[in-house]
Structure formats: C-alpha cells, structure tokens
C-alpha cells in the first residue's frame, strides 16, 4: 500500500467483488436451473433461486439418462469415459515426456537434436489444423471408438517435454557425478534421484493436463460415434443441440454442473499446483 486512501481500497474491493459476481453468474444460473422441475424452467423469467428438485434431477441424469434411443445413456457412463480419458492423457503425457526429456538432457547420441525439433514442431500442429488426416490415421489403425483412440494421439507433448528438460538442466551436475561414483547406472539415477526430485513438477503438470484431458471436445467429437464412448462434454453439447419442443433445461443444466465439477474442484482446491503448472508450462 503506497498511500492510505480508504475510498480507493473500498473501490478496489467493489470492482473485484463485482467482477466475481458477474463471472459467477452463469454458474449460479446453471445451478439454479438444475434444481427445478421442467415446467418451471420453461416459463420465462426463470427463477433466480434454487428449487426443490435437485436430488431428483441429478439422480435422473446420472443413473437413467434422458432423450430417445441411444441418446438415453446415463451420464455416469460419460463421466467415467471423461475420467478415463483425462487420466490416460495425464499419465501418458507425463510418462513419455519425462523419459524423452531425460534422454535428450542426459545422453549424447546421433539425431538427438532432430528428435528435439520433431517434438518442438508438434507445438505448431494442433489437432484443429489436421482434422481430416488425423481422423484417417486413427481410422486406419482401427482405433475409432476406443479408449486408445481417445488417449494415445493426444499424449505427445512439447510443453511437458520442455518443462522436464528445463527442470533437468537445473539439476546440479554434482548430483549426477556422485551417483555415478556410487555406481548408479542411468536407469537407477533416473528412478532413485531424478524422479523423486521431479515430484512437484509432475504434480503441477498433472493438474494442468487433467483439465486439458477432461475438457477435450473436438477430438472425441471426431473419433467417437458410439454413445458408450462419449465424453461428458460431448454428451452435454449433443443434448443441448437436440431439437425438442419442450427442452429439459433442468436435466441439461444438471449435466452441465456435473461436466464442470471435477475440473473446477481441482483448480479451486489445488490452486497452488495449478498456478505453478500454468506458469511453468509457459516457460
């Protein structure tokens, strides 16, 4: 605080609070909508305060599903798919990135820089610019409608590799020397020294990548056609865009709540790791 001007402090609080309220408004309306019955949610203006059908709505959505035909898949299936995808992407990305970074930092071998640049180039090839050919590759490997197809094409990661590379470069050489003198080979050094040292980086990356994996939309949209493999974000988007004379906003919004809840809780409760991961992956 440079000067004591109570009005300015008050004003700052006011602006931030106002910002919070405006930013949270869509979330509040979603929650409110998920606690009423269908009839209430079809009359404008919709209520601003929660109703009494919360448990009912969530139970219906989670365990029974709604809609006609195949769309009527209970949401727990989609939630489990999203969880599998998010965890798969997280673990896969971290695993293959950390070993690749280890090889690039701690070994000298022909083609080392070629590999490094190949990994770097992936930054410039987001799935959005290679939609059709990537779909064709996955189709020719018969990975459509499978967890492998959802996960494997997303686990290559330049940012994660760079993060570990950066971290390994900051590890003092004396440590490596000491380990070598004590007779530790490269795998032993990696497992017993480097891996435990990277714990925080791994955790921070895990938080960021979990959100990334959970929130994927275009990729699952391309390669899944069976409801059994839909992720929760996809299921939600499909239900919203189903033309219906009397839309079930109460159920759709309960779905939206469930689609948001896991990543939001992770960000809020693991804020420190989340911020760290965010800043580190941008270095």
């Amino acid at each position, binding site marked *: 605080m440079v*000067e004591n001007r109570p009005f300015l402090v008050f004003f700052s*609080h006011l602006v*931030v609070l106002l*910002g*919070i309220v405006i930013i949270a*408004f*869509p*979330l509040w*309306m*979603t929650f409110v909508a998920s606690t009423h019955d269908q009839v209430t*949610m*079809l*009359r*404008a*203006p*919709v209520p601003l305060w929660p109703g009494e059908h919360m448990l009912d709505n969530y139970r219906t959505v989670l365990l029974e599903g709604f809609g006609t035909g195949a769309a009527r898949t209970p949401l727990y299936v989609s939630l489990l798919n999203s969880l599998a995808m998010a965890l798969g992407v997280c673990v896969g990305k971290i695993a*293959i990135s950390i*070993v*690749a970074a280890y*090889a690039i*930092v*701690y*070994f*000298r071998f022909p083609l080392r820089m070629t590999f490094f640049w*190949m990994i770097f180039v*992936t*930054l410039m*090839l987001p799935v959005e*610019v*290679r*939609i*059709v*050919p990537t*779909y064709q*590759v996955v189709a020719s490997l018969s990975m459509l409608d499978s967890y492998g197809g959802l996960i494997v*094409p997303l686990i*290559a990661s330049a940012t994660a590799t760079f993060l570990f590379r950066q971290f*390994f*470069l900051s590890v003092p*050489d004396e440590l490596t*020397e000491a380990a070598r003198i004590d007779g530790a*080979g*490269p795998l032993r050094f990696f497992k017993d020294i480097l891996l435990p040292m990277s714990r925080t980086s791994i955790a921070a990356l895990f938080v960021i990548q979990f959100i990334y994996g959970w*929130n*994927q*939309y*275009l990729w699952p*949209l391309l390669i899944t056609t069976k409801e059994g493999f839909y992720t929760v*974000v*996809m299921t939600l*988007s499909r239900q*919203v865009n189903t033309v219906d004379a009397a839309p079930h906003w109460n159920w*759709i919004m309960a779905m*939206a709540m469930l*689609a*948001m809840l896991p*990543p*939001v809780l992770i*960000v809020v409760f693991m804020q420190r790791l989340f*911020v760290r991961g965010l800043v580190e992956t941008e270095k």
Partner: protein
Amino acid sequence: MNKRVTFDGKLLPYLLVAPQIAVTLAFFIWPSGQMLWQSVILEDAFGGNSRFVGFAHFAKLFGDAGYWDSVRLTMFFSFMVALGGLAISLLLATMADRIVRGATPYKAFLVWPYAVAPAVAGVLFGFIFNPAVGIAAWFLNKGIGYEFNYVINGNQALALVTIAACWNQISYNFLFFLAGLQLIPRSLIEAAAIDGAGVGRRFWTIIFPLLAPTAFFLLVVNIIYAFFGTFGVVDAMTKGGPAKATEIMVFKVYNDGFRGQDFGGSAAQSAILMLVVVALTVVQFRWIERRIQY
C-alpha cells in the same frame, strides 16, 4: 543448454525417446504431411483415383467470397476476444493487486472459469441468453426493450460467442497479470508517489509499461486461443450460424472437411491455418528469448 556430465548408452536413449517420437510421427507429422498433400491433389469422390492439381484448391478458396468472410470474421473475433479478455482481466488484476491482503481468497473465485471446457462455456451462455427461457435474454427483451435473439440475429450470435470466449479466458489472463504486477518493485511506485504522481499517472507511466511484456505474451496466447481453442464454444452454441455469422476458420475446416467431405478444400484451409500457428509460435518464442536477455 547442455549437461557436462552425461551417461553412456547406445540403445537406451533411443528407447527412451521412442514412445514420444512414435506418437509424434504417427499422429502429428504424418497427418500434417497428408494434409499438405491433400491440399494439392484432387481425390475421386469414390476413392482410389487422385491426381495432382497444384494450387487449384487454394485458387478456388481465394476466389470464394465465403472464405474471405470467414477470414475477416475470425480476425475480428480474435481481436475482440483478446482485447476484451485482456482489458477486463487487467482491470481485475490491478484492483486485486491494490488489496494484496484480500487478494488470495478472491483469487479462488476468479480462477475457476479456466477449468470450464469451452464447449460447456458455450452451453452456459447459450442458456442464460436463450431467447425462450434465458434470464439475460428476458432482461434485454422485456426489461430494457432491446430485441435480443441470437438464434436468428448474426451480430448478436457473434457478440455472445465473443463474450463466452472472453469469460473462459479471463482467469488465465488474470493470473499472469497479477503475477506480473506483483513483480513490479514497490519502491518504484513509492518513489513515483513521493514525486506526486497520482494513481492514474502511476498506472500509465510505470505499471503499464512494465506490464507490457506480459500483456504482449498474453495477446499472442489469447489470439491462439481465439483461433483454435474456441471451436467448442461455437460448436456447442451456434454451430457456425445463423447464416454463417459465427463460422470461424477452424469451424469451417471442420465443417467443410469432416461434414462436407471436401477434403481438398479443407486441407487447403488447414494449410493456411498452419501458417498462422507457425507465425504465432515464432512470435511467442522470440518474445520468450528476449525476456531471458533482460
């Protein structure tokens, strides 16, 4: 860049990079090569035959007024998303920085939109602005008599997509601005205050210039987000409509290629988008290099 102490191993390093390189080759580099190839060949609709057509797909694309509409729209959209998102988050971060003591609990309430998938953000805003039941649409229509229906009005649809995209990106910008603000030495600001500079003057002559590198970095990140990350917002809310009013370039690639089966045209569009990513990535990395030299 390089370690002094390394391990020896003939086969081991290759085994260690193999998984990453395999995935990169199979799902990144090979499809991108295919994409570039598809942009210069014409495939028979029944498969099989394909012949080299040079830049015919590009020529057709550049002669298509619809494509230029999409390009202009994307430029305008990403400019608005970046500007809106940066302005709002800078305001919030500056205010939060003033109240350092309270900033931490406030932070938790400002970071969560980052965790919401763009497609879910599209659903949320589509709902509160829904012409039939949305509370915001009701307020606009009945409350202040402004006729609002984004389902049929293209400009309103674009505005809504922009708002949802900004909302989604605010927490990211906020965190980086706040971190940037907290790195500015207090002594600088105190010195300026002693010299008689008021709050506004201090902001524009000291804080803002020192924050410029952060702002520039965020500008690039936001443009990348607006170009590529907003597919979900558009697909869940407007599907590019009404009348292509929200058909941004990424959505058009998806729509023409995946839905319309126009592989050549879609691949040519992809190639152009790839140039955009390459340019933006280069700018981003140049910036990071410069920052290190400080």
